[in-house]
């Protein structure tokens, strides 16, 4: 498996498509246990990212993902802006001047991204945040390396997202709800699931319409 700038663009464009389609759904999840803007935030941010990367020729993955991260930091705000922004920035730092990477390198770079999320948000597994999808998915990619089955990745991301439903939020806005946060899927976990789903689809080599 090889992942290059073209694959990276596919990933981000595909993710943006999902986010635009699911904007209302993500917002409704956030209305239940947050402030109802997660869909708006993600859709606004990735729309800007796609605009930004559309007309630029990127020579390597590092500069590409640096633009993704910076754009998210500058355009999203809220909790998700710094978290996803930091993730892509850390990701890009691992990929400096890399033109293409294999599955092992991809897992390692995503692991750095997860570290960025953790140090920015200080959330742990089980706090009902994006970490609850990122951590198991990154673990899977690290352990499978070149043997990663993209469908298994999709399955796991969805399962871990579903698992946030029964959790009591400890971090982020949903934490104010205490026990009332139980019974609702976490919006950030859901947008993270789309992120990995889009990645897996690109890894599978699915074509897409821009």
């Amino acid at each position, binding site marked *: 498996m090889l992942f290059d700038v073209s694959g990276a663009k596919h990933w981000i464009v595909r993710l943006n498509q999902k986010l635009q389609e699911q904007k209302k759904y993500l*917002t409704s999840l956030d*209305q239940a*246990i*947050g*402030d*109802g*803007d997660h869909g*708006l*935030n993600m859709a*606004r941010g990735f729309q800007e990212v796609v605009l930004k990367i559309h007309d630029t020729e990127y020579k390597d993955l590092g500069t590409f993902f640096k633009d993704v991260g910076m754009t998210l*930091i*500058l*355009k*999203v*705000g*809220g*909790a*998700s*802006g*710094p*978290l996803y922004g930091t993730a892509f920035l850390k990701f890009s730092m691992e990929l400096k001047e890399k033109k293409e990477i294999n599955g092992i390198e991809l897992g390692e770079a995503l692991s750095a991204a997860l570290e960025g999320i953790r140090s*920015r*948000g200080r959330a742990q597994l089980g706090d009902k945040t994006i970490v609850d999808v990122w951590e198991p998915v990154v673990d899977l990619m690290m352990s499978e390396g070149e043997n990663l089955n993209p469908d298994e990745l999709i399955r796991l991301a969805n399962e871990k997202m579903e698992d946030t439903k029964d959790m009591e*939020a*400890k*971090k*982020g*806005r949903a*934490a*104010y*709800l*205490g026990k*009332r946060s139980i019974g609702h899927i976490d919006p950030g976990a859901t947008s993270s699931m789309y992120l990995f789903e889009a990645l897996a689809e690109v890894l599978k080599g699915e074509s897409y319409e821009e």
Partner: protein
Amino acid sequence: MKKLINDPNQVVMEMLEGMVLAHPGKLKQIPDTTVLVRSEAPVEGKVGLVSGGGSGHEPSHAGFVGKGMLDGAVSGEVFTSPTPDQIFEAIKAVNGGKGVLLIIKNYTGDVMNFEMAAEMAEAEGINVAKVVVNDDVAVEDSLYTSGRRGIAGTVFVHKIAGALAEQGASLEEVEAVANKVIKYVKSMGMALTPCIVPAAGEPGFQLGDEEMEIGMGIHGEPGIEKTKIQVADQVAETLLMKVVDDLQLKESEKVAVMINGLGATPLMELYIVNKKVAEILQEKNVKIHDTFVGEFMTSLEMAGCSISILRLDNQLLELLDASADTLAFKR
């Protein structure tokens, strides 16, 4: 959704333009940002104060920019923390050489974005301190969670830290007094109706005709519980007692009171709430030094109110009484 707006996605920018057009002698906008600063910013030899957060809480925070309070306010999208670059612009614009204090409400998004901005500023050699306001006693105070939200009590932080800064105090002193206010101010709110984020177009939550939400946040985040609607006296007592207990207020202590409207609640109702609040405090022999009734920290057109109590020692009392000249708070 019935709103006096043009494009739901342009409300923040249009609002800021409208503010500067209304008050050109008081406020200026840093070009291409959502930052409003005092027209005389940066004030040399004075600690600069920056606050901000999502929009939709007007007059917070730009309404408190001016002599004796804030130097700059940063506005995010509605109910969404501003981004670090915007906050950084505000820091640069108000830095008069004595450092800048960031007054942050305790929301994950605000904390992270302001932190990133502070890192940027420090990288440029600007001395930055941060305080995080968490006055909302509706939320459990816990080390293992995000902790308590910052709500209307934040305005007292602006007022008192602003007054000390105006006297020429150092960044450490201003930070210390801000932290003292944060320790001494507690608030709690409730809502009768939800509000609609313009870009969402739909209410953030639902309340039945006979329901109200106790412990409401200021972004439409649900509160502690939905209850049957109660009369004003009962609401006042519920909110106030939670605040008073948390503060462990004792006889003959001095306090300042804020009855804050969330947006759609008539002043008439806020004063009716204040009647009960004042009566309870008098019964407890607590001395009310001053009372502020009106809209300070709103949630768009939400109906409801919050009650804040600030314990006053001599320093805080004097700084609270010091003159201030902003759009929404004048003394």
